[in-house]
């Protein structure tokens, strides 16, 4: 999949001058950053043998709470509150799955609905604005065109990559996804691994929510409805099966850039916004179908 991504980026760069414009390339990183951060968290949850459907709702809630708190107390406490919501929902998801024994689909589908419902009720589903100026300043802050949210994305990618590759916790995420019972018999506290994994997943959703508020300057209750499925799609497109035990952060990164580049190219070639989801869907089917048929031939 990485090869396909590189080839399409090269082809687009040769064929289209606007695509290879550095500003556009930085723009792609910026566009990829929010769902990209979530996809990195999703990657961990998928390696552990689960996934999280609540990340979009959690991101919206985090962004809104961050906005609300920033009106009362300033932007820094707002950010902390936003991240805490993400972490909290993640811990609840992880506990429902590990301690109560619910399956990840039901647990996170339920928490998604609860979070969305509470958020709509408290905000009347209306955006929280106007916000302190600092939000937009943060959103526009950049070093050589690399925006704040792009930098956060890079930090999350590198950080979670190191966790997966070099730490005992990372090792245990793979082991739990590969053989939960066997890993528990080997003396690993499986429940803790699962809860910590979903906590990190929730935290990445919280980070994305805060990023969204900084980019738009508004707390949006209705944001993020497609993010859970998009981030799962990114991980799968990047070559990680949903069965657990395998994969790396590179999958999430390759997948999210594949989706973003496709999106960017459709915009550059002025493909109607109504047609874009269809092409996006075809892209997903093609990428995942290619991977699936390759696995089938290998087996």
């Amino acid at each position, binding site marked *: 999949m990485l090869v396909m991504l590189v080839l399409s980026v090269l082809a687009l760069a040769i064929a289209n001058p606007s695509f290879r414009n550095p500003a556009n390339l930085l723009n792609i990183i910026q566009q990829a950053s929010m769902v990209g951060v979530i996809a990195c968290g999703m990657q961990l949850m998928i390696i552990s043998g689960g996934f999280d459907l609540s990340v979009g709702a959690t991101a919206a809630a985090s962004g809104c709470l961050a906005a609300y708190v920033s009106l009362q107390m300033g932007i820094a406490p707002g950010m902390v509150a936003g991240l805490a919501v993400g972490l909290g929902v993640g811990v609840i998801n992880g506990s429902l799955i590990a301690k109560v024994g619910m399956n990840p689909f039901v647990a996170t589908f339920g928490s998604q609905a609860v979070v969305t419902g509470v958020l709509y009720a408290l905000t009347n589903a209306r955006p929280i604005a106007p916000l302190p100026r600092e939000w937009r300043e943060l959103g526009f802050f950049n070093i050589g065109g690399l925006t704040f949210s792009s930098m956060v994305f890079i930090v999350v990618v590198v950080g979670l990559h190191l*966790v997966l590759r*070099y*730490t*005992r*916790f990372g*090792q245990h995420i*793979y*082991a739990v*996804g*590969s*053989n939960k*019972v*066997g*890993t*528990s*018999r*080997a*003396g*690993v506290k499986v429940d803790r691994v699962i809860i910590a994994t979903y906590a990190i997943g929730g935290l990445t959703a919280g980070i994305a929510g805060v990023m969204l508020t900084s980019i738009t300057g508004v707390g949006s209750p209705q944001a993020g409805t497609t993010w859970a499925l998009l981030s799962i799609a990114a991980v799968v497109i990047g070559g990680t099966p949903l069965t657990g*035990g*395998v994969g790396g952060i590179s999958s999430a990164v390759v997948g999210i850039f594949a989706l973003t580049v496709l999106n960017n190219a459709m915009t550059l070639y002025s493909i109607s916004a109504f047609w874009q989801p269809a092409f996006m869907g075809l892209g997903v089917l093609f990428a995942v179908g290619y991977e699936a048929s390759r696995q089938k031939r290998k087996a």
Partner: protein
Amino acid sequence: MHQVSVASLDHSKTVTTPILEAIGLSKHYGGIHALSDADLHINPGEVVGIMGDNGAGKSTLVKILSGAQPATAGQIRISGAPQTFKTPTDARSAGIETVYQDLSLAEHLDVLSNLFLGREEVLFKFGGLSILNRRKMAIRAKELLGEIGVNVPGVNDVVGGLSGGQRQGVAIARAAGWGSQLIIMDEPTAALGLQETQHVHDIILGLKARGVAVLLVSHNMQQVLQLTDRVYVFRRGKIVCNLETANSSADEIISYITGAKG
């Protein structure tokens, strides 16, 4: 009556303290008595067979001794000291390792990671995160596999790509690698071919030579006759006999299993 008959058979010649002693172990699931009043012991370096039909209580015994399930009643003593196993970790810290019939390996992980799963060597701690010392683990893994006599292509190979015999070897090496005094093996060769089975037999005899006791749960009569010093036969949740293998025969064991005797 049953108690007395078992005790009378139990004439150990040595006076060494057994590695493991189980006294009156019972397990009831509601009204079902999966295991009733089981007494058994295993001496250091002894290979002891457990035979019996399906549902005779063998698996229940394994679950209790490995710490997977608590007994309803009875006592376990390790080297004379009473122990309570609430989790597999308790059993392991008392020196009992278990090689499960399903092997309990993480198929997607490499040999090294499986050998050290739950007992990883750590380079240093960074915040709450422990950084793995893979180099140290790789050196120890190679030593360990060599000591036990397990041949795998490399310690960085994924377990899912190994043969059945190699996987069994990894699972046994994992159990044997921690100074354990007793290894419980649940049907270690049920899924293996002839040559691989022979190899596992060699590994078991090698462990015995190193003074490690093995509790071998098996349906394979030839294997039990060939490897064990003693055999306990289970029937309907009870131990019906404790035989010295050298003074017994397949016919006698079978007659206890089927109920023609005992």
